[in-house]
């Protein structure tokens, strides 16, 4: 699966510009992390990719064919979990998945449903009505419906929200496995998810792509811009403090800056540091 985004722009009817001149190439197998602050334009981008919005300018090609002209066929190859979604509360998890399997036009619906129920560890609760499930279990039903029919392009928007750490690791591995032969786009605020499984990271800010590459590349770009120091009474405007830790010697600060001050000790950047540095730079 290859998704080509060319000069994509999206402006809401109220005039607010959500995306500006975005160009991207996404190709399977790949697990792409999508990050950006709130309001950066992640949901519009994902909605455009699931044909939920129409672009103001530019094109999206799926395997070389314009998405708009092949919408029905494209949707058959798509699995999508939005950040905010609902389910039919009166149905059981299994019935919801059967319903979605029918919507996706799957032939062997029972088998497909059993497979994804097993993938999301929900076999025991398959007969339970949605209204009786916990938030995490509902989230798992949501992930399961996206996985139905082994779609070639999976889009997950904050899929691990509400899951306990053990479940998060389970799903992280599940996404990683899926990305062995598929294209997976994972939008998340949880940096560990990106760091541990994504082979590519896209950072979007103010509707523009600020970075597109491997997490390692982003980290490398930030070397020499991360430091630690003991908290000082006066604020240094050039520093953007990313963490404060209470230690026996006082409060230790971690910060990013274009130029490190003399009193600070350079530190090896993490992906979180790199992301924050990138956003900080974009703001200035």
């Amino acid at each position, binding site marked *: 699966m290859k998704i080509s985004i060319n000069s994509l722009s999206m402006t809401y*009817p109220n005039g607010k510009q959500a995306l500006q001149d975005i160009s991207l190439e996404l190709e399977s197998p790949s697990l792409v992390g999508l990050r950006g602050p709130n309001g950066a334009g992640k949901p519009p981008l994902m*909605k455009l990719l*699931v*044909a*939920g*919005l*129409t672009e103001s300018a530019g094109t999206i090609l799926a395997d070389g064919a314009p998405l708009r002209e092949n*919408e*029905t066929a494209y*949707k*058959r190859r*798509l699995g*999508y*979990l*939005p950040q*905010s*979604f*609902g*389910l*039919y*509360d*009166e*149905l059981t998890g299994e*019935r919801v998945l*059967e*319903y*979605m399997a*029918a*919507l*996706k*036009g799957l*032939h062997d*619906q029972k088998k497909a449903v059993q497979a994804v129920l097993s993938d999301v560890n929900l076999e025991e609760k398959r007969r339970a009505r949605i209204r009786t499930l916990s938030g995490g279990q509902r989230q798992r039903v*949501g992930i399961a*419906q996206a996985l139905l029919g082994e779609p070639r392009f999976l889009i997950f928007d904050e899929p691990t929200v509400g899951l306990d750490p053990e479940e998060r690791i389970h799903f992280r591995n599940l996404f990683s496995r899926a990305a062995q032969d598929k294209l997976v786009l994972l939008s998340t605020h949880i940096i560990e998810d990106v760091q541990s499984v994504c082979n590519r990271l896209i950072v979007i800010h103010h509707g523009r792509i600020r970075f597109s590459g491997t997490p390692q590349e982003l980290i490398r770009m930030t070397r020499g811009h991360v430091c630690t120091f003991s908290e000082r009474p006066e604020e240094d405007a050039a520093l953007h403090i990313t963490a404060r830790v209470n230690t026996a010697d006082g409060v230790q600060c971690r910060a990013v800056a274009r130029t490190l001050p003399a009193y600070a000790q350079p530190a090896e950047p993490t992906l979180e540091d790199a992301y924050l540095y990138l956003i900080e730079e974009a703001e200035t």
Partner: protein
Amino acid sequence: MSLRALFRVELGRLLCGRLTWLAVAATLLGPLAGYGLYRPAYGDSMASLYLANPMLTGGLIGAAAFALLMLASLEKPRRSRIAAITDAALSPLRLAAVRLFSVLAMAVLTVLATGLLYLPYTWYKLDIVFSLGDYWLATALILLSGPVMGTLLAAAVDQFAYRLDISLAVVLACIVFSQGAWCSRFFLAQWCVPLVTALSDAFGSAVIWRTALYSRIVWLCLLTSLYLLSLLGVRQYGRGLIGSFARHLRFAALPLLAATLAAGGGILWARQPFIDHSPSDWMSYQPEDRSNTALTLAGTEIEARIESYLLGTLSGTASYRITNTSGESQELYFELDSGYRVREVTANGNPVEWEDMCNDYIAAREVRCVLPAEEQITLVVEYGGMPKMWNAQEELMSSAGFISGKGIELFGSHLAPSLLLQLAGEETPVTLDIALRDSMTLVSSGTTRRGAPNGDGTTNWHAEDAGAGELRIFAGDYMCRTLEGGGFPIEFWYSAKYEPRLAGEGIDIMQEAIDYCTEHYGPRTFTQDKPFKIVQSTVFQFGGSASGNISQMGESYFSDQNLASPDKGADSAEVLAHEIIHQWWGLGVSLADMEDANWTDEGMTTYSTYRLMAELKGEEYARANYVEKWERTTSQNAQSFYMRHPEYLAVLPEAYAAEVKAAADSVNWYDGTALMIYRAEQKIGRERLDAVLARLYTQGGGELPPYITLGDFLNACDLEEGEIGRA
């Protein structure tokens, strides 16, 4: 994409919803309200009471219930945000269509279950007049119509409005409007359930079924068109109504199909074949006198053919022997049912030009032609079509002529062209030859003769009459009992379905009533050659009427409700006697008074029924079952709250006030007036009263001829106003 699988899961999802079962329960229980709480049909035949009313009420409740279900089915994905997932898997347009079909399928299943549920009870209640065909027709055309139309409208409105509250308000307002006064006047205006004023027990309800089916097709076209348009407004790509509409216009088939269906529905509406186009101010309309005095009609021969019992169409060839004494060509007008069209006119074998005047008036229109100057002319008119209904009677669905597989009633211009000229003499003959289904018997205003069967399920019939210039015919599963009326035969023609009901003392008591009235008041006007015929007719004639030697008794006289009416008699046989006495008081002569609206035929007929029962069963029985009952009900009526305080009646809501007034009127008409006449008898003596009544019957009234007023009655009895009262 397997739409079948999609439909299956959507239907399965519906079945898991509580609201679905609520809609199902409401539709299942809806018909119960039609037995008593809400009776939209006017007719009181058994089929009207136990089939039409429950089906109409069930249909209306089903319409509201399934409209609500449809709205909820569309609202829920929006409210629960499952649309965020489903829209990414399938086009919202397709999903909207699948949701509609699922609700429609649910509606069909529910109506089928409702039909099966009420079948045994309806069969039990209708008993001898039950028709399985009519039952399922009513289920399909009346009961099913509500949920289907309600669902379609709800889906369309919601896809435009995208707001549950607005959509619900609009749909409910449309349902209420459809049952309002304006819509009830036009059969096509009833979008939700068809206009059904009555259903016939014995003679078929073909007119109702035809108009119901036609109006359902019209509304299916219009609502489907609206729905297809609304599909274009299904919100997608984050756009509003106009944006989505513009975006979906690329599916050119949808707007094209919507436009085609809208145009089809519009054309069907405009060209409906059932109702004529008489002027709305028909009461003030004065048709021109087109009668040609230079032409005389020496004889008429009609050959009529029923073209289709299903469609109710007839074709015919009418041959007229005309004498033209003017020596010049003459303009001749003839009247023809508005639904018929002239196919050919010839005079002495030569084609004659004709002009359809297109001037509908009381279900007939005039056709003009010019006859040659020859003295003896044989005019032949080929014509055919489906009889139309007078638009003033559309709200009653009362058709002057009708043709169905169970009954036929035609007369005058509804049977054949009615020429506007003079009859040659009192014996001018008119004959009719017609082939009818083997199961049918022809009854006519003249004499009838059954011919040989044709071997194709039809039998030839011949009817002839003299002096009237036209024939009145009835056909159905008629049976005849000959009763004696003052030495002359009275033929009582009734549907074979009623044979069990009439086999007991019913016929005997009718004979007794005829004897009593003939002896006390005088014979009805009939002769040995042209016997008086009492013909049971369809419920759509609402009661009875008389014309020439034919007196019609609507079949509702024989309904359980009427036969159990305590106002008319102590038991069903006595009610039949009451209805026969109406042939004298009501059809023979009639009572009316401009200053006393309660002075009606009902009171005189009730009094005569009492007198008949006094002769048959003794004075003690008659007093207990009639006079004492009148005294009791009139006393109760006089003491009722609203009669003592009419000022409160004025402030009651209109519907309640009408109900109270109707109950009071019924007491005054039947019991009060009968009591007045009884009190007159007490004052002047029974013998003298009988003489007074006989004189009034034979001579009619003087104050308001031909009606007999209260003043006429008091004068004849030498009584003063106020000497006899109802209370």
